[in-house]
């Protein structure tokens, strides 16, 4: 015979059953804490805690046996009805069955590479002009750039830094080329994500943040180099790079992404009847 037969359920008032409030968990927890607290205070605290723990446990047991103690919560005002909206998720071009998850048109990665190369060249010109004006030498900025890798260059005098060095020139060319292309590639990927004023982001925000980071960390990374940098020209060169690369990328024609392709097109299966890449299947 089940326990429910000993406790027939009375007629239900208007409402929803929820667990009845009970102080047993509170009593149990307090008791357990006092048991522990007694170890670092007085043994009598442990005794009191233990008694509370037992009282709480018995109370808890009676809460759930033979049936859970419950109370009736009155039905309150319900939520306002949900009204249908008119907005709709964009579809992939010409494919009503497929939602567009991310923008379907992006700048090609090659725009970032080319933008980076052109920006890097212009940046180098600006830095060289700076060297010429400040130090009367075409090679000062080039030598400083090489000092990020070459040991000993940073400790040279201004006169030494103004001289042409084949090693420094080659190293600086490699650094400038690699960094320009890499940053251009990052610009190419990130600029389409910027919702507003992407050129401002490319030409001002990123160069200033990068210059700030360099300024803050150069004393740790290379303290000797810190004394030889012309910061105004440094920032100017960074901004020039940002303007040129950003402008180039933004003005490149966007291309469709693989989102528009069918699965078969993506995996490269060619067969009669399969539409061309990006062509609608409807």
């Amino acid at each position, binding site marked *: 015979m089940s326990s429910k037969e000993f*406790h027939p*359920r*009375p007629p239900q*008032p208007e*409402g*929803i059953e*929820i*667990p*009845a*409030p*009970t*102080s*047993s*968990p*509170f009593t*149990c*927890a*307090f008791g*357990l*804490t006092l048991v*522990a*607290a007694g*170890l*670092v*205070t007085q043994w009598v605290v442990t005794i009191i805690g233990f008694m509370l723990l037992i009282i709480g446990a018995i109370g*808890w047991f009676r*809460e*759930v046996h033979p*049936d859970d*103690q*419950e*109370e*009736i*919560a*009155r*039905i*309150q*005002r*319900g*939520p*306002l009805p*949900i*009204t*249908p*909206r008119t*907005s*709709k*998720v964009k579809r992939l071009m010409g494919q009503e069955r497929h*939602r*567009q*998850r*991310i*923008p379907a048109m992006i700048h090609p990665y090659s725009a970032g590479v080319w933008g980076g190369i052109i920006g890097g060249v212009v940046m180098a010109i600006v830095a060289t002009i700076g060297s010429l004006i400040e130090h009367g030498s075409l090679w000062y900025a080039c030598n400083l750039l090489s000092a990020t890798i070459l040991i000993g260059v940073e400790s040279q005098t201004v006169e030494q830094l103004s001289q042409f060095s084949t090693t420094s020139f080659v190293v600086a060319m490699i650094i400038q080329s690699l960094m320009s292309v890499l940053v251009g590639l990052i610009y190419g990927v990130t600029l389409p*994500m910027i*919702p507003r004023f992407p050129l401002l982001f490319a030409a001002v925000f990123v160069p200033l943040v990068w210059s700030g980071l360099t300024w*803050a*960390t150069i004393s*740790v990374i290379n303290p000797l180099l810190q004394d030889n940098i012309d910061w105004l020209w440094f920032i100017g060169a960074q901004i020039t790079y940002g303007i040129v690369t950003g402008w180039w990328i933004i003005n490149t024609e966007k291309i469709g992404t693989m989102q528009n392709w069918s699965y078969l097109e993506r995996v490269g299966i060619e067969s009669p009847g399969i539409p061309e890449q990006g062509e609608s299947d409807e």
Partner: protein
Amino acid sequence: MSTMDQKNQGLQSHAPGATFATRLHEWIATSDHKKLGVMYVTAGLIFFLIGGFEASMMRWQLSWPGLNVVGPEEFNRLFTMHGTTMVFLVGMPILLGVANYFVPLMIGARDLAFPRLNAFGFWLFLFGGLLLYYSYFGAQGLYGMGSSPDVGWFAYAPLTEKTFSRGHSTDYWILGIGISGFGSIATGINLIVTILCRRCPGMSLMKMPLFVWLMFIDAILIMIAMPPLTAAQVMLLFDRWLGAQFFDTQDGGSAVLWQNLFWFFGHPEVYILILPAFAYVSEIIPVFSRKVIFGYPLMVAATIAIGFISLGVWVHHMFALGLSPMVNAIFMGSTMLIAVPTGMKMFNWIATLYGGRILLHTPMLFSLGFLTQFLLGGLTGVMLAVVPFDWQVSDSYFVVGHFHYVLFGGLVFSIFAAIYYWLPKVSGRMLDEKIGKWHFWLLFIGFNLTFGPMHVSGMLGMPRRIYTYQADRGWELWNLLSSIGVLFQIAAILFFTYNVLNSLFRGKKAGDDPWDAWTLEWATTSPPPEYNFKEIPVVHSRRPLWDEKHPEDPDWKYE
């Protein structure tokens, strides 16, 4: 008392015009997951203020060389209590509180599976925390004076042995944290059972909101990670009280054993704390980008992978210990490996933002703050995974900067995002947007000003936990900047406190669904009734409210 009598009493207890004592009893005796959630978060925020005060005192002391705002003993107590408080009494209760409140609502349930166990878990946490702080008055230090624990939040052996830690301060740490730990385990069990057994019709595992998935994995991690800590604490108690020698190196015990046991808890604990942050932003970013989360199945897989891998990286906290190169290499690899699923999540959040109609409301600002700062914290984490680099900066301020970027820049920013997002549901009132933006920008500036320079001072060799330093080390500027950042943070917290208190009494009415969101908690009133839903909802997709709002273009057609 008969069942009917109790039912009538229950009805009467909700009558209007109840006295203060009646209302107090209602909160003490409640087993309602929402009230317990509110109590968890409120207690966590109060401990946050206390922990913040402790941190501010430390920054004041370190703002300039040779200051004597606090002495070395008090400084030891401050960093111990700050770390312990922020991890165990702020992070844990807030994550459990938010989960308590919203998991049942999001899965269309009326309560957690074990409501009384839930109340027990909360009270254990609270009493554990109070017991820890009672040490300021009750613990007898070396000279018979009251003192709080001073052994650091990870309480390394053999410093915690009776020989080195006289009096009861370390015992208070063991007992207080142990009791809170029992509470966390109780709530972890509750969350797992609730999520597995109480989901509304139609909500298969792969139709659960990501929030629920993340809290599910989080609860499993709690279940796995907390018991070793409790066991280690009991062993330490045996050492201190019964003359056992588990960690007593003078008697053949092993200090490394404590490190292994603690960090087997301690590193999953980092993920226990950060997975809820992922949970909050995984709900907030889609709503404020007006797009569905990108790559839901991959997000679920990444969550499971993070949970799994996080159990096998703990030795990276012990690289400086002198373990074998093979062990170091294995744990370096596993630590780097965890960056992969975390990176997947990053890319998916960015892809969710990409092309979305981004609304820069306060919850979104905090979420974006989380993304950038957690990314930086994650990257320095990868740097620290490299053993030779770790050897160079181990126990330096670089590490302090790193984990604050993860836990403050990540977790705390996401908690504020969650509060701005969900408090309207809890209280029925909106927080002020303008004050919220002041709060965000002040905290953003203050946080980066405080913790960014710590990377530099760490690289310059400043060890953590020193209470002062000489003026010739080149650390002055960086410490001064860090301390100035605290002033910004204090201002931000004042704005936040005012905003919350003001909104509770004078805030604009929120309505049921102020953000035009899509998960089930927005389908009931603000605040929700005790029973959550008059009728248990039936769902067909991961965004049931989207389906209701867009009957011509429901999600279930595409999932």
